[in-house]
């Protein structure tokens, strides 16, 4: 079985090279073989074991013993299931209709594993390579100026929504331009990936476009001011007053009060002064007395340092756990 990793066309790589599957990362076999990563998927996919075999290119065995000898590491993961289903599987030979059911199960199973994989260290790394190569396309919004997008799902449950593209530059989601992606389930990417990607790779400079991203544009050293856990320059760079379309008739702006007037500009708005968004600092400024509760809220700005020092040590176990993590995160990014 392990031989399949050497063969040029494993099931996984052929699946990922199908038309419309350009967004998929190739899940490593080690990831699939770790039983822990598959927790709970048995109940979600029909013919789970057969589907898993297909993904891993395990030959549908005639003789159980033979297979066990061949791939011991494989057995660790699927042996248990295999034993359970062995009896019922014995009798039926694989017919064509069966195969197509397994094939679609395998796709579903792969998608669900993929959803987990791209949030793992190896997976998100692979996705970042695809991101740098521009595999996920660009934002259709003209003011976003071809910002790179990320594939996301709007639901973690398969069969609800197709895959969408999340633009980190305007924080909105779009239908992929090509209809071939409208058969790809959004759950195969999941709701978490898009946001997690930005948190994992805060160094990507979202204001850069095209070839600059290819060159691995990073946030410049002198621009590394943090706000709300992100670099200031990376907070929705394509939003704001100057980057909102203004409808005009013969040069005159259409009034907000007009029936056809612009009503959705808030969706593309951003404060001119980003520190307006620093809610924690503003709260601290407005309420200088309140030094209790909400420790985790006070971690953004410089001016809260005073508060931080005053913070009592034993204030609640759960809250206390928040601050070290936050501090660690900030340090590692610097």
């Amino acid at each position: 079985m392990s031989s399949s990793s050497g063969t040029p066309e494993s099931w996984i790589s052929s699946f990922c090279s199908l038309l419309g599957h350009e967004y998929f990362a190739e899940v490593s076999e080690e990831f699939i073989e770790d039983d822990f990563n598959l927790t709970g998927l048995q109940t979600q996919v029909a013919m789970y074991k057969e589907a898993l075999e297909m993904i891993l290119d395990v030959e549908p065995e005639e003789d159980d013993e033979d297979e066990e000898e061949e791939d011991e590491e494989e057995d660790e993961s699927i042996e248990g299931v295999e034993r359970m289903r062995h009896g019922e599987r014995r009798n039926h030979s694989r017919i064509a209709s069966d195969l197509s059911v397994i094939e679609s199960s395998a796709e579903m199973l792969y998608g669900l594993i993929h959803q987990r994989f791209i949030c793992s260290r190896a997976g998100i790394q692979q996705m970042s390579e695809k991101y740098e190569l521009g595999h996920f396309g660009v934002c259709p919004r003209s003011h976003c100026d071809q910002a790179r997008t990320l594939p996301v799902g709007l639901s973690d449950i398969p069969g609800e929504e197709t895959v969408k593209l999340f633009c980190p530059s305007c924080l909105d989601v779009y239908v992929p331009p090509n209809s071939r992606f409208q058969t790809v389930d959004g759950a195969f990417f999941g709701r978490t990936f898009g946001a997690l990607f930005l948190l994992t790779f805060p160094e990507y400079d979202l204001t850069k476009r095209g070839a600059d991203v290819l060159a691995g544009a990073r946030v410049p050293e002198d621009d590394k001011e943090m706000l709300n856990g992100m670099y200031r320059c990376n907070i929705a760079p394509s939003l704001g007053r100057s980057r909102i379309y203004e409808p005009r008739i013969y040069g005159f702006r259409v009034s907000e009060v007009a029936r056809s007037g612009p009503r959705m500009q808030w969706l593309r708005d951003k404060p001119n002064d980003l520190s307006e968004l620093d809610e924690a600092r503003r709260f601290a400024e407005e309420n200088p007395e309140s030094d209790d509760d909400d420790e985790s809220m006070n971690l953004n700005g410089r001016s809260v340092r005073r508060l931080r020092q005053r913070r009592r040590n034993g204030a609640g176990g759960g809250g206390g756990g928040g601050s070290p993590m936050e501090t660690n995160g900030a340090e590692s990014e610097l």
Partner: protein
Amino acid sequence: MMEEFASESDSDYTSYWRDWFISSRGNEYFCEIDEDYLTDRFNLTGLNTEVQYYQYALDLITDVFDLDCDDDMRETIEKSARHLYGLIHARYIVTTRGLAKMPTLASVQGSSAGRIHYYQWAKPMRLIRNLSNSTVFVARMYTIPSLAHAAIDGAYFGTSFHNIMFQVYPALVPSKSAERYIPRVYGFKVHAAATLIRWQNSQRADMLRRLRKLEVESGFKEDMGGDDLDEEEDEDEELGVDGAQDAMHVVG
């Protein structure tokens, strides 16, 4: 080849060039310009300086072209004709008749080129708009998905058309919704995005308040008024204290 039809230039059957032009690939966004409009010189004021071989191009559009010329020349005139048609088109679609034609085309034009249709948020009624004079843009300004359309000059639609269209046909204005995408990690909102969204919601509430004061219909599906801010906060509370704090951790 056009000469054969020259004699029939007044009949209804003569719009060969325009038929061909509209039905050719990538030109789905254009509507057919009436013969009357084309032949009225007033409507063409100033265009003769914009277009090379203006008279020949106009002849070609109106199917009365009968010049014997070589292929190169014909090619140039053809190009001019397309340009001229586009420029006339920009004027035509803001006339009463042109406006009446465009809505029927609207379904062809596609829905807001990508933004997710949260329920009824954008009925398939997003119209062409233009920005500076690059390519054609769709309402809320999205570049048009098909590459075929990337070649169309935005000026062929003008900057005013879609606005006038919505003024004339207010029923076509899509209803709006405050539904939006909220970036989440394992169900928890990301702090940076969440603060921006809160700020934007306060902007929306301000706008709705202004509109309500003037007693203007906001166009939102349900008038959330000033309550939506509270709703937003309620949602946060539903997540619970743990959720809020975890969301903060994720930020780091």
